[in-house]
């Protein structure tokens, strides 16, 4: 066998019903990832603030969350949310969900991916918070800002610039991790590519298409984030070429 014996048939990509399936799969990847990311950033910033809070109990909660969600693989977490979590709910709730949420796998994916990504976002914001000199906080409090206002107007914007490269990576990672939802049955891009292959044996074309989808997303994010990085650049750090 060899790659030259392989009969390429790219029409698979736009033939009915495969074309429509691919588009549906791509859209699923997009909205699943975005929903999970929004969840992740909101939870992540809150957890990060807990992690640097002066009160020990707050820190404990924050640290606990991060520890649990960062130290288990996303795959295990997805399996948990999909298979195990519903079993822990009361019988009536389970039945309601069975009747009213037919695409539970999708939502398990959003929650699972969001909760997992939140723990990583939290760590990044915490690193950003710690990189800020304590006097910044004191200066802000001295002018009368509340802790919440301080975080909102002073700390978070600054921390954001500091962690921007890692934050970009995380956004991308979220999109790519959405592919793992295929293991619990979500019909996103990768799963669709695989699924079409099982009907047509033209997996090479579909997986190429899938790769192009992810790469396009990556390029778009990468280019806009690079521009953002440059605009928000803090002078005094080493740049390429030195």
């Amino acid at each position, binding site marked *: *066998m*060899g*790659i030259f014996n*392989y009969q390429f048939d790219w029409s698979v990509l736009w033939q009915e019903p495969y074309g429509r399936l691919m588009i549906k799969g791509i859209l699923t990847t997009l909205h699943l990832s975005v929903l999970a990311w929004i969840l992740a950033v909101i939870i992540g910033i809150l957890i990060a603030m807990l992690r640097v809070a002066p009160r020990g109990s707050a820190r404990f909660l924050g640290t606990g969350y991060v*520890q*649990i969600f*960062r*130290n*288990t*693989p*996303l*795959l*295990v*977490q997805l*399996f*948990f949310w999909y*298979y*195990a979590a519903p*079993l*822990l709910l009361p019988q009536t709730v389970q039945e309601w969900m069975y009747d009213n949420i037919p695409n539970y796998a999708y939502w398990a994916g959003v929650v699972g991916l969001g909760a997992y990504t939140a723990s990583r976002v939290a760590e990044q914001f915490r690193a950003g918070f*710690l990189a800020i000199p304590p006097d910044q906080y004191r200066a802000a409090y001295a002018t009368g800002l509340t802790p919440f206002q301080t975080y909102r107007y002073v700390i978070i914007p600054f921390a954001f610039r500091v962690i921007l*490269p*890692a934050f970009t*990576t995380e956004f*991308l990672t979220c999109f*790519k*991790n*959405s*592919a*793992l939802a*295929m*293991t619990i049955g979500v019909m996103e891009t*990768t799963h669709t590519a*695989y699924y079409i292959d099982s009907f047509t044996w033209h*997996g*090479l074309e579909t*997986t190429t298409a*899938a*790769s192009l989808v*992810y*790469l396009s*997303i*990556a*390029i778009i994010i*990468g280019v806009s984030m690079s521009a953002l990085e440059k605009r928000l650049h803090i002078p*005094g*750090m*080493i*740049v*390429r*070429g*030195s």
Partner: protein
Amino acid sequence: MDLSVIFKNAPFMLGGLILSFQLAAITIIAGLILGIVLASARLSSKSVFYYPATIYIHFFRGLPLILVIFWLYFLAPVILGTSVNEFTAAALAFVVFEAAYFAEIVRSGIQAVPFGQVMAAHSTGLSPLQTARFVVIPQALRNMVPALVTQSVVVFQDTSLGYVIGLREFLRRVNLTDAREARSVELYLFAGLVYFSICSLGSRASRRLEKRRFEAD
């Protein structure tokens, strides 16, 4: 809650950890080496190094690992002509993939060294190579070690993806056990607990290293 399921099948499931560890070790070592090469190329002002490295990094950072694994598993035998066992396919995919991440960590570590250090070294007559070797890299290493440890923990967790090509590592074995015993809650909590124990050791080491760096300043 029927915990006996766990105890009955523990040897089988935990046996998979050996494979997980092997895969992780190979990935970390080979991936880091490749990552350093890529990072240096990316910091170079010569286009012949910069562009290929940048394309490589953006390419692999843009794809899900799961896709890369599938690719290699199906493509490798087609190109090489012979069948490839799951472990080799997984290892290849992992190394090639994770190197892109290690490269970025190395690059940030280097770029976090203040430019004044470079100026000071140059002012005493050190060549760019000497400056890199004695002044920049030691400091860059200190900068990047916590992130490297974290990434290694991620690599270990990623070994669970060997699942999708049937690699009989830990998670696959848990899944097989679940298929037989149908006690999902206990088994997946167990899987989580095992990964958690191993990975939190790594996280704790990373945090301790981070703390030490703050104290040294």
